């Protein structure tokens, strides 16, 4: 036994990354830093600085929402969906949460040499079906083919345009302490279904992605209430990132209740098994609504009558908080902070 303990310290890792890591695409703090550090300052203008999922602007007295997104999901087919469906619904949802009615979508493909035509056809058909369900039109597009190994099978980029019809204004600045937070259903299914279908963990489940178009659900609630202050769909980075983004842009705090957040038993089990936090796992068909408390029950009941909102719950409320943090009452009655995800969520063993 050595009597003397040597208190040496850890060597400093590189703190300023000189390369892009997977974490930069994780929808958490790394992604945010990429935007704040390199992109926003360079292109700064009054529309970009809205920092929404969609940009909102007016042309000849018509208010438009405009968004773009890329889809690089691996595997391209997963339980409950595929890359094509995801591309359409992801774009539709970014427009919907801005209060817009999605109208037109552009469609660009980057395809790896050697990709089977059969798969290409299958994805196109899936896209067609999704546009019919979401009631949007594909009006322009592009295809590029790259050498084998330059991309992973097929990547899709879309742009979406929507029209904001009602005199509705979805804007974080309208959020105030006392507003209720409504979540349209259970969380984590998309991220977990992708994780399982990558088959690194040899798990058998029947969890399917929740990918779905939210425009009809949004339409219903903006028709019944003029007091919806903010909407967002919690995708990459999960519910936690979505709530933190709202809290920061609205300059409010949040208090949510762990026992009000629904998680399917099997999703919860996988999270327990791999040491993941379901609050950070991606969704593709869920809606978070911030609404004035006087309309909360009305909006909640309207959501529950829609198939995509039947499990809606009021999960918490906005509070005054100088730090603009998200707090959660745990199931044992204590309060903790729900921080934004910092990098990729990696399975814990320990």
């Amino acid at each position, binding site marked *: 036994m050595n009597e003397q303990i040597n208190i040496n310290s850890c060597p400093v890792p590189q703190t300023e990354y000189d390369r892009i890591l997977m974490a930069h695409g994780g929808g958490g703090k790394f992604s945010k830093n990429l935007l704040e550090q390199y992109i926003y300052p360079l292109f700064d203008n009054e529309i970009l600085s809205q920092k929404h999922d969609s940009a909102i602007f007016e042309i000849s007295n018509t208010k438009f929402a405009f968004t773009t997104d890329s889809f690089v999901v691996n595997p391209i087919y997963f339980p409950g969906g595929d890359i094509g469906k995801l591309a359409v619904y992801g774009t539709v949802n970014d427009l919907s949460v801005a209060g817009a009615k999605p109208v037109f979508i552009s469609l660009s493909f980057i395809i790896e040499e050697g990709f089977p035509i059969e798969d290409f056809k299958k994805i196109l058909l899936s896209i067609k079906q999704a546009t019919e369900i979401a009631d949007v039109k594909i009006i322009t597009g592009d295809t590029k083919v790259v050498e084998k190994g330059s991309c992973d099978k097929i990547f899709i980029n879309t742009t979406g345009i929507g029209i904001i019809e009602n005199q509705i204004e979805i804007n974080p600045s309208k959020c105030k302490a006392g507003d209720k937070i409504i979540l349209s259903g259970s969380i984590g299914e998309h991220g977990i279904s992708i994780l399982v279908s990558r088959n690194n963990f040899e798990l*058998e489940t029947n969890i399917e992605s929740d990918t779905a178009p939210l425009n009809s659900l949004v339409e219903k609630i903006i028709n019944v209430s003029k007091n919806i202050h903010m909407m967002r769909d919690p995708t990459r980075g999960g519910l936690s990132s979505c709530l933190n983004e709202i809290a920061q842009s609205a300059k409010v705090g949040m208090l949510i209740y762990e026992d009000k957040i629904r998680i399917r*038993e099997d999703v919860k089990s996988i999270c327990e*098994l791999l040491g993941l936090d379901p609050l950070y796992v991606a969704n593709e068909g869920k809606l978070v609504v911030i609404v004035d408390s006087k309309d909360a029950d009305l909006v909640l009941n309207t959501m529950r009558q829609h198939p995509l909102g039947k499990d809606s719950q009021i999960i918490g409320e906005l509070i005054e908080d100088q730090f603009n943090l998200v707090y959660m009452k745990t199931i044992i009655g204590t309060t903790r902070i729900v921080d934004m995800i910092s990098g990729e969520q990696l399975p814990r063993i320990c």
Partner: protein
Amino acid sequence: MCLAIPGRVISISNTDTESKIAKVDFGGVIREVCVDWIPDIKIGDYVLVHVGFALNKLDEKEAEEILNTIKNLEEN
């Protein structure tokens, strides 16, 4: 450290390498688990699983006992 999760054994089989493998159900999720270290394993047992290995059987009586202990704290 050492994340280990309880699950229920639903089937047991030997692999070609004579290692005993069981299918274990974790709240609706099934994974193969090595049960070499649990000689008297049987279907329906609950085991504690860490990195794909069953560490021990879970004792249902003792599990209940802890809850009773907590309930009885008030009286003592």
